[in-house]
Structure formats: structure tokens, C-alpha cells
């Protein structure tokens, strides 16, 4: 392997952060710039470099040799295959989003701020992927959230956008408080914030402390108070549910996704969700090892909690999506439903605590595929908004006559989201399905099948409108925005290529999950 300094392991996050600082610098030199090309160019380069680093490190096997990954800042951050996998998801979604935003914000002011905020939020997500303690995770999570509140409310003249931003901010603030309180309870119960330290405290049953970077039992061997720990874990589940838009904290998602500028909806529903999940995967797989928790009597069984959440999220998301009248809101609810699918990653665990790496890797692969197909679908909405096409299914009637290429791409996204074997979505769902069968979680398997079948119904409504229905107005599409088209078509190509290439993605995900 190339001998790079350890801090270079963070290069995927650093390049995103650097790009946002460059944008802020450019903005302070020339605040009224309307040179969207240059601004978007810097952003695209920054996120592509981030993706390049992540891909390079993954294929170079960073963090495989020293099985704990590259530890930085006294183990506050750790770059392993899991972190890199999610950094790659974040970077690819960010690339698509900033590329598409080039056309979308061309008419607006504060362009540099827009891109800088997107990149800052992406930096947070990238760091969150590597967070190895509750403290650094919380800081990274706030770095994800704060810029995104502003981004949702970016269309200042649009009441819906401002309302969505405010709602998102209020619910976000509450859930941050819940999460912070949960973290404090876990700290009170175990004495440490580092994930591996919490795990040691749980497995040994004694409160730990960190001396000179190494974990050791506190003087007097005080026992871990399981009740306090349980409440803490429950609150952390709440915080995760908010970030991933899972039941019961999913209310904000349809509002925020519908009100926000469509590229931001894409960003939040794909990248932000992935960031929430990497936190969940890492915290629950590393810090709260289910095997040890069950061994101590099974009073704290977060698998059970995630099973309930997964089933509830799948059903609520998909049934709500089936009843929507506007396409964007339908996609927003379907995004809730997909959070339910990914939650299977933490729920398909046997009663003896086995099967976690199998199900988690299936969930990770689904997030990777989802990053492309869902981002693509929202960017198609952005394209429709750009053209001034309305919001309802009927408004999409006959769109394929005017824009067959974009509609073909959208068809790929929708069928792949539904799980037809035209894109990677088929395999990722199938792997989730087989993960549930592996541990005999029949209720999860049944929920997955029922909801996939149902989802085909509402996704195909859009396909039907675009291709089969006659156009109802005489609207004509005047321009074909380059950035949006590149992003949509690019996402479609990757979605399709993930069908033959799924094996590679899954292998990386499985290895990453096993290393945890």
C-alpha cells in the first residue's frame, strides 16, 4: 500500500470540506458572483475527488490489515471499510446533487452559499461515517443537520420551502436534544463515550474509564446500571429514527422533502439517510453488542425494537405513498418505506445475536443502490420543476413524448426502486430478503414482500402517466438543462450497471460489516 500519513485517511471528508471553504472564500471575495459554472465546477470537483479517494482507499484495502481501521485523534475517528463505503455513498450522491443544482439554482441569488452548505453538510456525513465515539458522532451529526435546515428553506420566496425548513428545524432540534440526552445517559451508565469502551463496559458489566487512550475498569469496579443504559439506548434509537426518517420520527420527512428544492430533497433522502444509518450500524454493532446484551439477561434487546420499527416503517411509508396525489410526496413516503427496508439490516438478527454482518451488509448495499436510484428519481422531479411541469401524477401525463431520454431514466429508477430486475434495487432487496430468511425472521420477510409488491403499484403510476397517458395541456419543453440531464442519465446508467456490478458492492459491504 502507498505510505500516506494517517490523517490522509480522512481525505474523502477533507476534500469535501476544503471545497466548501474554497467556495466561502470565493464568495467573500466576490459576494455577488453569478458565475454558476465556476461555483458548481468547484463543488463537482470537490465531491468527485472525495469519491475518488474513497474508491481508491476501498480498493487499496485501507483499514483491513489493522483490523480496527485507521484510528485518529485518540480513537475519536476511525477510518475503516465501513466508513469508506459510506463516504463513497455520500460523495456520489453529493456529486449528482451539485451537478443537478447547477441548472436549478442558476436563477437564484446566494449561489455560492448554496453549494458551500451542501458541501459542509456532506463533510459532516463523511465524518459521521468515521465517528468512533458518541461525542464525535454528535458533532458530526450537527454538522450534517445545521446546513440542511438552511438548505430546505433555501427558496425564501416560497412559503412551502420556508415552512418545511422551520418544521424540519424544530423537529431536528428536539431530536438532537433527545439524542444528546440519550448519549449523556449512556455515558453516565458506562463511563465512556468511545464505542469500543462502551462495548467493554457492557461485556464486563463494570463502568470503564479511559486512561492515556486505553480502556480500563474504574476504581472500585462499579457495576453498569442497566436501567439507565436501556433508557439511553432507547433515546439513541429515537435520534437515529429521526435522521433516517423512520417511524415514529418520520413526520418531518414528507414535509421537508416536498417543500425543499428538489435537489436538496434528493440530498436529504439519500445521503442524509445513509449518514443516519452508518451511525446506527456503528453504534449498535460496535458499542451495544447484541450478543453481550442478551447474555446479561436480555433486558435490553434493541433487535426487537428495530424489528418493530422496520415493519412499522415499511408499512406506514408504503401505504402512505400509495395514497399520495403528488409525485414528490409519493417519493418522500417511499423514502420512508425504504428506511424500513434498510432497518432490516439491524433487525434480521437471530435470538442468539447472529446474522448481523449478513443483514447489515445487505442494508449497506441497499443504501448504495438507493443512493443512485432515489437521488435520480428526485433529480427527475427537479427536472420537472425546472420545466414548470405540475406536481401531481396527472401533470406528468405524456411527458415521454417530449423528453423520452429523461423519462426512460426515470422509468429505470422507479422500477429499480420497486425491485424489478432492471437495476441494482432487485439484488439489494433480494439480499435483505435472504438475510431475513437466514435467521428465520418470517414477519420481516413477509413485510418486505408485501411492501415491494405494493410499491410497484404506486411507482408504476408515474410510469403510466409519463408513457401511456396523453398530454393534457399544450405545454412544451423549451430547454434541456445540461447539468440536470447529465446527473439524471448518469444516475440511471449507474443504477443499471449496479445490476451486473452488484457482486462487487456486496463484497465490500460484507467485508466492512464483518470487520466491525
Amino acid at each position, binding site marked *: 500500500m502507498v505510505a500516506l500519513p494517517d490523517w490522509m485517511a480522512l481525505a474523502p471528508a477533507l476534500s469535501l470540506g476544503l471545497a466548501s471553504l474554497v467556495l466561502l472564500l470565493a464568495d467573500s471575495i466576490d459576494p455577488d458572483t453569478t458565475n454558476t459554472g465556476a461555483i458548481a465546477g468547484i463543488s463537482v470537483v470537490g465531491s468527485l475527488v472525495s469519491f475518488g479517494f474513497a474508491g481508491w482507499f476501498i480498493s487499496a484495502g485501507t483499514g483491513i490489515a489493522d483490523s480496527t481501521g485507521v484510528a485518529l485523534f485518540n480513537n475519536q475517528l476511525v477510518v475503516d471499510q465501513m466508513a469508506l463505503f459510506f463516504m463513497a455513498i455520500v460523495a456520489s450522491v453529493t456529486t449528482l446533487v451539485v451537478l443537478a443544482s447547477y441548472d436549478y439554482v442558476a436563477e437564484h441569488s446566494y449561489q455560492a452559499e448554496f453549494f458551500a452548505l451542501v458541501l459542509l453538510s456532506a463533510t459532516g456525513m463523511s465524518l459521521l461515517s468515521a465517528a468512533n465515539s458518541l461525542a464525535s458522532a454528535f458533532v458530526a451529526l450537527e454538522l450534517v443537520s445545521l446546513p440542511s435546515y438552511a438548505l430546505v428553506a433555501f427558496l425564501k420566496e416560497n412559503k412551502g420551502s420556508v415552512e418545511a425548513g422551520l418544521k424540519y428545524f424544530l423537529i431536528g432540534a428536539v431530536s438532537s436534544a433527545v439524542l444528546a440526552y440519550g448519549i449523556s445517559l449512556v455515558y453516565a451508565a458506562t463511563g465512556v463515550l468511545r464505542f469500543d469502551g462502551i462495548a467493554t463496559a457492557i461485556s464486563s458489566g463494570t463502568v470503564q474509564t479511559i486512561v492515556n487512550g486505553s480502556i480500563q475498569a474504574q476504581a472500585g469496579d462499579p457495576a453498569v446500571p442497566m436501567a439507565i443504559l436501556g433508557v439511553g439506548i432507547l433515546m439513541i434509537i429515537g435520534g437515529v429514527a429521526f435522521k433516517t426518517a423512520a417511524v415514529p420520527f418520520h413526520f418531518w420527512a414528507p414535509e421537508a422533502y416536498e417543500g425543499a428544492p428538489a435537489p436538496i430533497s434528493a440530498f436529504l433522502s439519500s445521503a442524509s439517510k445513509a449518514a443516519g444509518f452508518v451511525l446506527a450500524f456503528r453504534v449498535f454493532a460496535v458499542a451495544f453488542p447484541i450478543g453481550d446484551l442478551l447474555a446479561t439477561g436480555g433486558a435490553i434487546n434493541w433487535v426487537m425494537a428495530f424489528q418493530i420499527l422496520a415493519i412499522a416503517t415499511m408499512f406506514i411509508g408504503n401505504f402512505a405513498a400509495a395514497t399520495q396525489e403528488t409525485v414528490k410526496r409519493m417519493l418522500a413516503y417511499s423514502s420512508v418505506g425504504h428506511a424500513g427496508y434498510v432497518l432490516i439490516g439491524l433487525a434480521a438478527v437471530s435470538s442468539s445475536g447472529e446474522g448481523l454482518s*449478513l443483514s447489515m451488509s445487505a442494508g449497506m448495499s441497499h443504501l448504495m443502490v438507493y443512493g443512485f436510484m432515489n437521488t435520480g428519481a428526485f433529480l427527475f422531479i427537479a427536472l420537472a420543476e425546472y420545466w414548470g411541469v405540475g406536481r401531481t401524477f396527472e401533470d406528468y401525463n405524456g411527458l*415521454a*413524448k417530449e423528453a*423520452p*431520454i429523461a423519462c*426512460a431514466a426515470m*422509468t429505470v429508477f422507479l*422500477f429499480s426502486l420497486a425491485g*424489478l*430486475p*432492471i437495476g441494482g434495487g*432487485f*439484488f439489494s432487496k*433480494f*439480499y435483505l430478503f*435472504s438475510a431475513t*430468511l*437466514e435467521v428465520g425472521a418470517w414477519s420481516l420477510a413477509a413485510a418486505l*414482500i408485501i411492501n415491494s*409488491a405494493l410499491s*410497484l403499484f404506486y411507482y*408504476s403510476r408515474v*410510469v*403510466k402517466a409519463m*408513457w*401511456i*397517458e396523453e398530454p393534457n395541456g399544450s405545454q412544451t419543453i423549451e430547454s434541456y438543462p445540461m447539468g440536470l440531464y447529465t446527473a439524471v442519465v448518469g444516475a440511471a446508467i449507474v443504477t443499471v450497471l449496479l*445490476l*451486473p456490478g*452488484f*457482486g*462487487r458492492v*456486496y*463484497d465490500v459491504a460484507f467485508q466492512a460489516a464483518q470487520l466491525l
Partner: protein
Amino acid sequence: MWVAALLLVTLLGTGVVFLSPDKYAGKLAAAISVIPALGSLYMYWVYLTQYGGTGNALLSPADIAFSQQIPWLTLGELEVSYFVGLDGISMPLLALTTVLTTLAIVSAWTPIDERQSQFYGLMLFMEVSLIGVFSALDFFLWFVFWEGVLIPMYLLIGVWGGPRRKYAAIKFFVYTNVASLVMFAGLFALVFSTDLTSLSLPAMAEAFRTASGLPTIAGVNLMTISFILMFFGFAVKVPVFPLHTWLPDAHVEAPTPVSVMLAGVLLKMGTYALLRFNFTMLADTARQLAVPLAIIGVVSVIYGAMLALAQRDLKRIVAYSSISSMGYVILGLVAFTPYGMGGATFQMIAHGLISGLMFMCVGVIYNTTHTRMVGDMSGLADRMPWTVGIFVAAAFGYMGLPLMAGFAGEYFIFQGSFDAPTLGGAAPVLTSLAMFGIVIVAGYLLWAMQRTLFGAFSLETDYEVGPAALHDVAPLAVLLLLVIALGVAPDISFGMITDSISPVLELGGGA
């Protein structure tokens, strides 16, 4: 390599045609589709001359022709690979697919007058999927193509269809998609309860054949349950009574070139899958259930024919008669005799050609007269002699005129099923009943022809009714020649079919 080349060329062609201007799309698509057609005919010739006597792709993997295997991904312990190859069963179906696609594309030049580049692009995309369905030897690869057929078909019916096209398209989509899910569930119940290490079809055939100690659910062996689920899944596609109701709607609403593909190739996907999965992998169960399955087949024959008898719409008549013809295929398959199963496979080809030809004839007549109703017109023979001549020939082929492909197929099936050991004492009864179906076919076809084609010309229209264009009649002539060629020399494909069928018959005690 050959199969990959066919797939790639056609896929590339899909993209090119999709992006081409409407004006040239039809000609371009026809030109592109000639490449896979010629390619598969060349492969057919190579197979015929060099691979004589090779076995079944699922049962003797060493003998697979044109095979190629590249690892794809792993699923727990299951290896999934890109695995394609052909044998005497799939080779004729592949050739049928590519030839019929080219002809269907040419026959679309007249009726399709809007959004041509999308239409022809979808036709080629469907061809890619169909080539894949008949050549894939790995379950996941096969399933990708199997579902891949669904999307273009849905759009082709939904966009370019008749007045009730939206209803027909969604009905087709829902029926076949639910069927796929049921089939998938049935198959994977078996996959997860045997110790498979690979999802290639030969490996599955091996594992299911030797599977023992399978769980029972409510006293029924899992093998039987899976067989029934899979049969249900494939039977919708065939279609078999009582799962056939999507077919007339889809056929009547679909534009003619799409009907040609639907009747000619898509229905064969169902019977092909039945032969590969139910009757090869689960051969023992199929033998046990032979009598009920044969009854389903015979009911389809008679019921389909009776429904056809009651129709006025020429397209509906041909559509219902397809149900009848596919019933023969089921009867032939359950017989488990060389003539029965071989004849059933041969009938897939023969029916593909003849029903394609019939739909094309109806299409040409409709393009000229703008009606398909028996009774609205008469004496067409006077105005469009070539088309009507071919139509009459095709209809006689359908009725089973000797020296045409339909006769050979049906004769083989009856010969094979009459004393089929699997059917026991019921064999002669069921076969005789099925034969009666031919009488009904003759009844409705003669009636329809006599009313529309002969007598004095009459048609209330302000259109000029004259001979069809050369590019409309040419595909008809090509298909008729193929029908006659296969009828005169059935061994062009029957030989390779029986070679590949015989390993299936040797399973579990032999016929």
C-alpha cells in the same frame, strides 16, 4: 461468446434506435434486427451440423453448446454467474425469437405512425430479453431477462394499443407480475431447503432431483407445493385455463406487431419455463401430477376453442385459439414420451410461426379495411389476393393440414400422449378429447374465412381497398415458407429437440 454477441448487438441497437429520428427508426430497427436473426440462424446451422445428438443443457452440462460462464456474485453459499448456453430445446426457440422479431418490425412499418423510435427501441429491448430468457442457464440471469420482457410489453400495449389499451396493459402487468412472485416464492422455498452451492440451472436440476428429507407442510411434501406454485407462475404466461383472461384483452388491444410477438414468442416463455423447471427439475413430481395437469391442458384446448367459436373479432378468434393450441403443449409435456415432449416443444415453434402469421394477416387486413369484425366485410379475396391466399394457407396450417408445421406438431403430441404411461388409462380418453379441439378449430376458421374472404366484395367504407404493400406481404410470405419447410421436413428441428428431450425422459425410471 455467440450469445453475448447477440445480446450486446441487440442492446446496442436498442439504444441507437431509441435515439434515432422517428422517420428512419423503422428501417433502422429492421436492419439492426437482421443481425441477431442471421447470427442465430448461423448458430442454428452450426448446431444442426456439428452438435448432433448432444444432450440436455440442464442434465448433461458438458454438452451445452455456445456456453459461456463468468462468475457474477455470491449469495451466502450460492454462486451466481453469467451463464448462457443452448441445447436442442432452446436453439429453435432462439431462432424463432430473432426471426419473428425482424418480421414483426417490418410488419409494423404501416400501422405504427407515432413515436416510432420509442416503439422500435422497445421492440429491440424485448428481443434482448427474449434472447436472454431462452439462453440463460443461471436462475438469476434468467429471472432478470424474464422480468425484462414485462416492461417493454407493458409499454408497447399501453402506448400503441387500441381504445382499451390502459386496462389491457395494466391487466397484463399485474397478472404476469403476481405470477412471477408466486413462482419465485415456490422456487426459493426449494432453494433454501436444499444444500445448493450454485444457482445455475444444471446445479438446481441436480440438487432438486437428489433432494431428500424435505419438510412437509400440512402433510404435503415441499416439492409438491413448490411444483404447484411454480406451475401456477408459469401457467399464467402460457396461459392455461382458468388463468387466461389477460390474454384476449392484451391481444385485442395490442398493435398487431406486438400481438405477433406476444403469441409467437411470449407465450412460449411459459411453456419453455415449464419444460425446464417443472418437467425437468421436478420430473418426478410432474409424473405424479400428470393426470390433473393433462386435464388442465385438455380443458384449455376445448375451452379456448369454444371461446374462439363465439367471437366475431378476427383478432380475438386467433387469440383464443392460442389458448387452445397451448393446451396441446401441456398435454404433450405431461406425457413424458419422446413424441409427446418432443412434439410439445416442436409445437411451440410451429405455433409461434403460425399464430404469428395469422396475426400478421389479420393486421394487414385491418390496415387496409380498418375493421376486424367478421360480418363487416366480405369478398376480400377479390381485392387483396396475395394476402388472402396466405391467410387461407395459414388457416389450413392452423387446422393441421399435413405438410405444414402445425400438423407435425399436433400429430407428434397425439402420438406421444395416446399411450402415455404417466396418464395410464386416462391417456386415450384425454387424447381423443383434445383431438376434438381440432374439429372446433376447423369450424371457426372456415366460418370466419368464408364470411370475410369469399363471396362478393362488400365493405362500407370510404377507403380504397386494394392490395397491400410489398413490405406488408413479404413477412407473411417468409413465415408461410418457414411453416411449410418445417412441415415438410420437421427434422430440421425435431431431431435436435428429441436429442435434448431424451435425457429428461430417462430421469427417474424412463418412459
